[in-house]
């Protein structure tokens, strides 16, 4: 019996959801102890006796027994979930209540409520994302710290701060709450950030990054499963994630170096993800709303359906960037728009568009602004100016992969490429 990859991590999120239903969010520490204990047991028993037929059910059954023990032992000394206070008091109803908390549909609903609770606007976005990764995705502080390039101690502090706020909230967010719409938008925003961290993020390690993207997609699909949390905007977000994730296999070359969109081997794009993304984008168009996610997904769809850089409909892409600038203007969107203009109208127009970006000073520490200047100057034949821009870009690189990529561009300067090779960035912030 082989264990499916990341089973423990995945089950961790589900067990936390079920146990929080029983113990209440104020007992999050207790919840995590029980989950940890279940994994310790699995570790010790399975490594000797082998993996059981249904590992997830085995873990769940250990957690259930522990939960029953704890409630029986501590019900006079401790308060558990206020919603279940009465049923947990009596032996007649205790076991069925625990059983119910571990049912698939309850776990799904509780995961959603947990997701909404983590995205409390009183917490900073970085805390929200760290909480989602820790509580719902089962990543530990050292792993999250690694992905975000912060120290383990800083990440532990960040997570602890978030959990303290969660525990103080007494109960998880209720999806019928009046604040639902505002919170829902914060949830989408956090998932979008989570995805972008995986896609563009500062971590150089490929495996972690695609896991972050995978988790963002999984949680977004969880939203779509729920009648309350399904909406055209969420579908557009899911479409955007699928279409970008489809390119992940081609995004790093064999040596693990960044391979920009324009250079990618398109046969390595994941056709199934593209198809799912396009279907989601279709469905997302059913409502009256056109959100930034819709436009970004539409841009990704144009790329995903073009057989090559030259056959890409750059006119459509420039138009979509114009719309995006109208809905959610940002210097990064301006940068990507300028790159698209360079493809549509030639490098001189691209350079003019780059220099016309409002707030472009916000891009002065962003390596890909200088890199874009370099690419377009190179295409104009100005090799020396291009080299200066690439050197600036290389000094701004935020990780080794970016540095290697930009240094390689400097080395390759003598071989003018057929087209620009700048990395269009899907995010909307620097």
């Amino acid at each position, binding site marked *: 019996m082989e*264990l499916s990859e*990341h*089973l*423990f*991590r995945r*089950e*961790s999120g589900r067990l936390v959801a079920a146990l929080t239903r029983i113990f209440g969010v104020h007992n999050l520490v207790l919840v995590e102890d029980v989950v*940890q204990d279940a*994994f*310790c047991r*699995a*570790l*010790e*028993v*399975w*490594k*000797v*006796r*082998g*993996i059981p037929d249904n590992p997830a059910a085995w873990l769940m059954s250990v957690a259930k027994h522990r939960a029953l023990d704890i409630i029986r032992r501590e019900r006079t000394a401790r308060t558990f979930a206020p919603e279940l206070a009465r049923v947990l008091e009596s032996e007649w109803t205790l076991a069925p209540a625990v059983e119910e908390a571990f049912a698939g549909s309850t776990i799904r609903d509780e995961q959603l409520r947990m997701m909404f609770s983590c995205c409390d606007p009183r917490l900073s976005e970085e805390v929200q994302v760290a909480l989602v990764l820790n509580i719902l995705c*089962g*990543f*530990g*502080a*050292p*792993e999250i710290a690694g992905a975000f390039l912060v120290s383990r101690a800083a990440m532990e502090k960040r997570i602890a701060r978030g959990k303290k706020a969660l525990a103080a909230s007494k109960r998880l967010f209720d999806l019928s709450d009046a604040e639902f719409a505002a919170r829902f938008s914060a949830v989408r925003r956090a998932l979008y950030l989570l995805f972008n961290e995986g896609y563009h993020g500062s971590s150089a390690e490929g495996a972690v990054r695609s896991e972050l993207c995978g988790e963002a997609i999984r949680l977004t699909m969880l939203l779509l499963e729920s009648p309350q949390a399904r909406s055209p905007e969420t579908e557009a977000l899911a479409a955007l994630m699928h279409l970008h994730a489809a390119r992940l296999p081609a995004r790093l070359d064999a040596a693990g170096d960044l391979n920009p969109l324009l250079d990618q081997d398109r046969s390595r794009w994941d056709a199934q993800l593209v198809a799912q993304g396009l279907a989601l984008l279709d469905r997302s168009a059913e409502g009256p709303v056109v959100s930034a996610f819709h436009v970004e997904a539409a841009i990704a769809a144009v790329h995903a359906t073009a057989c090559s850089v030259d056959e890409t409909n750059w006119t459509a892409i420039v138009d979509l960037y114009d719309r995006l600038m109208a809905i959610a203007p940002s210097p990064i969107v301006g940068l990507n728009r300028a790159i698209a203009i360079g493809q549509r109208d030639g490098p001189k127009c691209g350079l003019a568009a780059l220099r016309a970006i409002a707030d472009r000073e916000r891009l002065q520490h962003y390596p890909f602004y200088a890199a874009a200047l370099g690419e377009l100057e190179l295409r104009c034949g100005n090799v020396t100016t291009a080299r200066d821009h690439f050197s600036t870009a290389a000094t701004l690189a935020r990780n080794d992969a970016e540095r290697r990529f930009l240094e390689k561009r400097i080395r390759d300067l003598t071989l003018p490429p057929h087209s620009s090779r700048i990395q269009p960035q899907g995010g909307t912030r620097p």
Partner: protein
Amino acid sequence: MSQFLYLYRMADAARQEAMGTPERAQQNMQRWMAWMNELDRQGHLKDRGQPLERTGKVVRGQQKTVTDGPFTEAKDLIGGFTVVEARDIDQAVELSRGCPIFEGGGSVEVRPIMKMDM
């Protein structure tokens, strides 16, 4: 071939640390299983053994006093055992070197099982 008992010892704190995150626990377990399966494949695995709970009682002395224990703060609590077959103690020791317990600061005690048919 002779039989040897492997006694796995580890401090509780080290055990918690080896567990670390769910991902690390899963990887740790997979390394254990790979090691056990390799012993089995080479015909050295006599009995996979059993893991032991971390709690229990100790009965001691002529008074047969009963105390709670072993204590979780004990430096090297026995966490389980396995019986292997090897040519001699040197080979049994050599085989134990692949055990993932060392990554977490634990130890393996290798003890020859007395032969009954001498």
